[in-house]
């Protein structure tokens, strides 16, 4: 249980790191709406997806692309967890 929580925390931190790196932010709240805040445009999304693929060794196929997955850090973490479990 503790191990799972630790692992989850590590994923959160890595997603946070990738997000900050890609969006040139110092920090981002897990529930910040990245679309509403105007933080993520189409090109930034493409770059973010590439960075996530590299960081987590996952492959985001075109048919798996649901933009809602990128609305917040929380939803990105869920998407990464889902991809990693495939």
């Amino acid at each position: 249980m503790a191990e799972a929580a630790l692992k989850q925390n590590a994923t959160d931190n890595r997603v946070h790191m990738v997000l900050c790196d890609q969006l040139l932010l110092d920090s981002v709240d897990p529930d910040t709406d990245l679309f509403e805040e105007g933080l993520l445009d189409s090109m930034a999304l493409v770059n973010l997806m590439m960075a996530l693929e590299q960081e987590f060794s996952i492959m985001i196929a075109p048919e798996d692309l649901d933009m809602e997955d990128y609305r917040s850090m929380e939803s990105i973490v869920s998407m990464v967890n889902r991809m990693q479990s495939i």
Partner: protein
Amino acid sequence: MNLAKTAQPLRPSPSSSFKIRAFTPGDIESVVQMSIEHFPQCRLVSPGYLYETIDDLYFKDTFSFDGIDSLVAVDPNGTVSGFLGVTPKKFRYQGETILASMCNHLMASEEARSALVPMRLLQQFLSGPQKFSYADGSVESTRLLWKRLGGEPSFSNSVYYKVPLRPMSFGTRPLQQRFPNSLRKPIKKISYGADYLFGVARLPFSRRKQPDVRLSPIGIDQIFEGLNRIWRSKEIYPETSTSDLDKIFRLLKNDPRNGTLHHIGIWNNRDILTGWFIYYASAGGVCEVIQAVSLPGKETELFESICWHAYNEGGTELSGRAIPSQIGTPFTTKAFSMPGRMWTLFHCKDDGLARVLHSDKAFLTRMEGDLWLI
């Protein structure tokens, strides 16, 4: 989770979500305004001209198909903030007619970009009923979006070439663009004069060899006949009629931006049509090639013919996109070749068809992409 406070957003927040719907005639005016803002070439013509061309391209006399529409993104106030021009096209593939769809002029306002409108427009377009989708003359950012959505750039259809016809004018062109108008004209005249003197002095780099063929204007019927001959060796080609060609020629001729449209046939000494080229001649400027096609093995003749013609029309530079069969011929070996300056993009779920599209078995010239029409 132990995260620090959120940093300030880098861009203004979009007020709310954007809706994507089919482009209607009522949207033309907004699209004209957006085109003027986004594309420098649209500032060279009047808004009235743009209005008519867009109306003509997307709403008049075009082949239409339910479910394939140009798309607009509108904000909650109903303001058009994004556009993707879409043209359905018919192609012949393995003896059957298949439906393709070409997209161009992807644009979005700053706010719409923050709401992922370009990505959503492309995603909706690519999920249409067409067998394959393509885009011509796309910029790098569109290539990245397109690839992310499952499409591929066609490397063999993305090789652009530039041929200096008048070396001095060609060489000073980048300089001319940096100088104000008052200096630009004298530099242009001096360069052109120097090129003339080089020509008189018969310096080898300053003259074009006259090809051993007959060049004369070619009509639509003859082009159509020639296309039918070329298409025999292709597995996929556009299903075009003479009236389609007539329409595209009319649009090309009306465009005041690029110079004088020429369509020239090449006949060998046995009076057989071996190729033709359609291009804009611009005295003292860049001559843009729209379509240059020849029978297999006649590419050198074709290349020399275009250069000769454009040189005699006063052009300083020839520019175009090579088709796959012209790669490795003078179009790329005797020209400045620029792979990936812009991109031809394909999106196709059928692997067999995709392979054909990326090969020289597909016939797809700049004439099949309407990008430069707006």
